[in-house]
């Protein structure tokens, strides 16, 4: 049991560091000042990955019934996809 928890702690710590790094990356891209479709898609993708990490590990949905995984991840994918669609629609 305690062994499980230690490994879970380790996994969460690694994810936390990765999430911080991804945030700094997003910030740096923003500071770089570039825009455009590719950048928007990249940043949305990063946001979706970060969201998935929080959902599956922090919210512990990785060990939840499939239905709940589908609902929460489905929300994430749908929201990001619709945002992407709106950006694509708004391209000059």
């Amino acid at each position, binding site marked *: 049991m305690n062994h499980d928890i230690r490994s879970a702690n380790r996994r969460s710590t690694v994810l936390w560091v990765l999430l*911080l790094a991804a*945030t700094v990356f997003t910030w740096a891209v*923003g500071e770089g000042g570039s*825009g455009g479709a590719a950048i928007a898609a990249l940043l949305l993708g990063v946001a979706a990955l970060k969201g998935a990490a929080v959902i599956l590990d*922090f919210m512990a949905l990785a*060990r939840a*019934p499939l239905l709940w995984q589908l609902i929460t991840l489905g929300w994430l994918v749908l929201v990001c996809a*619709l*945002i992407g669609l709106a*950006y694509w629609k708004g391209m000059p």
Partner: protein
Amino acid sequence: MRAACPPLPAPRTPPTLAGDLAIWIFILAELLAFGVFFIAYAFARANNPELFAAEQLALNRDAGAINTLLLLTASYFVVRAVHAAEAGQSRHGARWLVAALGCAAGFVAIKIGEYAAAFSAGISLSSSTFHMFYLSLTFFHFMHVLLGMVILGALWLNARRGLYGPHNMNGIESGAAYWHMVDLVWLILFPLVYVIR
């Protein structure tokens, strides 16, 4: 035939939701509300990308990024608190919760600074569609951070009394799930409103 089958491996615990079903229904409703708000923002922007981009550039991205780091860290601390409770160390978990509350307080302070700057610059709900969304979305989220802090505070009081343990995880898991939701929506809000142009 049946007797010939090899013994099954010890069954793994069946998949379960961490936290109460009621809180998860509530979380889904919250996710839906934020989701609708995000999508409304994105489509409103599509009608006027130049204006949105110009006003977006004027936002304080440093503050937004630091706040993201703070929320992520608070979330991580809450995870550690849950793990501690699962290991039967509820009081140890209480200290992680205090740390999480500290990060949340930092978020609130920075956000208030941002609002103060915005209001002194004459930005209001009526000044433009972008500012309407910026203030509405962040303020709606801000209220959730405050509620999340109340919940974390309640968890802390209970954890300190050693209430949580491997056989009593429902309360702390429910509260933790709510806090992670507050974090999760910000992970989309930050790039959407502050960065992506």
